[in-house]
């Protein structure tokens, strides 16, 4: 996993100290959120659309074996190749082999979160291929060597000047930092790459089980380039990303475009059923679909967390999350940030030690659940993840100790009374203006950004016994 700083605290502190990041994140999420409100209001009864989305996704996930089997059958019937990957390492090995078998040197990619999840680019580059991210935001972070900070706007954290600075060594001359100049530079720069690309790697927003089609949405048109021009197309797909038929695409595409960017439809929605027919001029001659499990089957078998597989990766939960809006995506340290990232990362990676902090990146206000177009109860799942982490004994020693102490005092009334009396007398070095501030760790973790009420001189228990002698 790519990370900036090794510890969560360092990453969060860095994010909180970065004024541009915080301003940009707030501005961008505000914009996306407000656009979404407009686009959903005009649909009439948005709640009905959400319910319809939830119904479809729940049905598909509950019958995932059937629909995957159908999808695989259809694709193979049309002459496509399907590869099933249990682990990220399997998926990488599959893609590497296809690239090697085709003796390909120029790989062009449109956006794929699965490729981020499995860290594909590095592996292909090791084999001597040039891999180019063609989505503008992905291209920026590829040059910068950073993970995406938002699922829809990956380079949200970069200023236009930073982008110009990143592009200049490639351009070989000074670039002005206005966005039309930067966009034009990328257009020209990328044109050659598109025309030379011999393998195109794409993501997959939805796969249609009964036709064997892949649905991909982009605004820039890079998805179309990557799936039209190269001779070979590889599509990477999380195994849950299915709809039964074209009919369900109506609800899903409306929910996705409106929730993600507030558009009625993205600029380009491609429904592809590759490979190209023999008599057609354009399109890939060879098509490979790589379907990734990576512990999704574990989530499927877990009734509590199964709804997490309903996600359509629109990013709406990011834009309303008070935690994400303060710290941006990098502080999470994971490929998937935001509320949904906090839910799925610990489940996909099955690693509490590295990812156990994520369920705590939430105020549990429920804004994410309200924003989710397929009604995933995200805040509820976050609480359940915290419980699971705690019960599996992965909370820090100090936290376990604190709760043991808490239990001890609250099950021994006399000792508790004595401790409170003692506390009210001994707390004076920490009290300023009637509140506790400062102090040694672990107390300082709380007091570095807020204060605590001081222990009352006369405890509630004392008052109570005076009232009821």
């Amino acid at each position, binding site marked *: 996993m790519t990370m900036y700083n090794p510890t969560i605290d360092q990453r969060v502190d860095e994010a909180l100290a970065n004024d541009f990041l915080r301003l940009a994140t707030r501005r961008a999420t505000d914009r996306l959120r407000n656009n979404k409100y407009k686009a959903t209001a005009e649909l009439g009864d948005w709640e009905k659309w959400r319910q*319809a989305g939830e119904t479809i996704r729940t049905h598909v996930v509950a*019958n995932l074996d059937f629909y995957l089997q159908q999808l695989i059958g259809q694709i193979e019937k049309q002459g496509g190749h399907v590869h099933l990957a249990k682990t990220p390492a399997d998926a990488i090995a599959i893609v590497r082999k296809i690239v090697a078998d085709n003796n390909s040197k120029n790989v062009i990619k449109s956006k794929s979160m699965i490729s981020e999840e499995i860290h594909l680019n590095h592996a292909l580059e090791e084999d001597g291929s040039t891999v180019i991210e063609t989505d503008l935001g992905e291209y920026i972070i590829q040059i910068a060597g950073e993970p995406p900070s938002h699922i829809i706007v990956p380079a949200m954290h970069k200023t236009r000047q930073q982008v110009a600075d990143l592009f200049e060594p490639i351009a070989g001359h000074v670039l002005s930092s206005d966005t039309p100049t930067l966009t034009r530079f990328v*257009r020209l720069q990328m044109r050659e790459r598109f025309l030379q690309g011999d393998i195109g790697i794409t993501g997959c927003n939805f796969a249609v089980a009964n036709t064997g089609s892949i649905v991909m949405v982009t605004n820039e048109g890079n998805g179309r*380039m990557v799936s*039209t021009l190269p001779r070979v197309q590889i599509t990477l797909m999380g195994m849950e990303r299915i709809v039964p038929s074209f009919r369900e695409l109506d609800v899903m595409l409306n929910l996705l475009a409106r929730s993600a960017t507030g558009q009625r439809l993205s600029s*380009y929605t491609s429904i*592809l059923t590759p490979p190209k027919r023999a008599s057609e001029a354009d399109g890939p001659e060879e098509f490979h679909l790589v379907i990734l499990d990576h512990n999704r089957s*574990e989530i499927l*078998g877990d009734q509590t967390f199964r709804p997490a597989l309903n996600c359509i990766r629109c990013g709406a939960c990011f834009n309303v999350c008070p935690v994400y809006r303060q710290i941006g995506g990098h502080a999470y340290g994971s490929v998937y940030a935001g509320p949904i990232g906090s839910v799925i990362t610990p489940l996909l990676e099955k690693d509490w030690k590295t990812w156990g902090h994520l369920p705590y990146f939430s105020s549990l206000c429920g804004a994410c659940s309200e924003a989710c177009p397929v009604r995933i109860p995200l805040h509820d799942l976050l609480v359940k993840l915290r419980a699971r982490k705690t019960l599996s004994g992965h909370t820090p020693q100090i936290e376990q100790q604190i709760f043991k102490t808490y239990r001890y005092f609250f099950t021994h009334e006399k000792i508790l009374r004595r401790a409170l009396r003692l506390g009210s007398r001994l707390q004076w070095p920490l009290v300023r203006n009637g509140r506790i501030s400062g102090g040694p760790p672990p107390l300082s973790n709380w007091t570095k950004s807020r204060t605590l009420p001081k222990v009352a001189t006369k405890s509630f228990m004392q008052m109570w016994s005076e009232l009821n002698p």
Partner: protein
Amino acid sequence: MTNTNEFINQLASKLGRATPTETPNYVASNVPQYRLSNPKERASIFLDNWQALGGKGAIVESLEDTVQCLRGWFGDLLAAWPNKPQAIIAWDLLPTVAEYAFKALEWPLVRYTQAAQTAVDRYSLAALAELGVTGADRGIALSGTLVINSHPQRGRAISLLPPRHLTFIEASKLRDNLFEVLEELASLGIPPSAIEMISGPSRTSDIEMDLSIGVHGPIEVYVVVIDD
């Protein structure tokens, strides 16, 4: 590389049952759909929404209208385009009005699929062209969307590589919403290798959320709605 049966069986066991042999049923929830009352309204709303996305468009009723419209949009540009005989690249067969209009204007059309032997040469031609001309199979009024199916006599790069894309669509091919279009597409059986839904020009907001037009796909998009 995992065996398909093994992969599917593992999912079935996670789901605690055998894999169904028939397509499983479910009760779809109804959603309120956007509906318009008549074709005239549909054409005009389609055009409004297309223009709101940054496209240019016109509704034409005759060949003269069409010629005038094309001359207005491209007449001056054409004079300035270098490599004029190869500036406009098109489907092998455009809607009749379009064919007649280009003939009347005496603007040469390069027919994409016949223009070169290899894919690489065709792409280069399309990338060097100034204008790509296509028809459309359907349109969606609500979202200002063109729906274009792939076909041996067409070519997908025409609507993608040139900096300008011009589409002709008969008004009778417009639908109110995406649902109607998908229902019709579903009835085709095996879908064409590509169904491209295009809503306006290529756009991005990836740098500081500032909208830029034309990052990879066409920068200018034009639609002629043929009143039939």
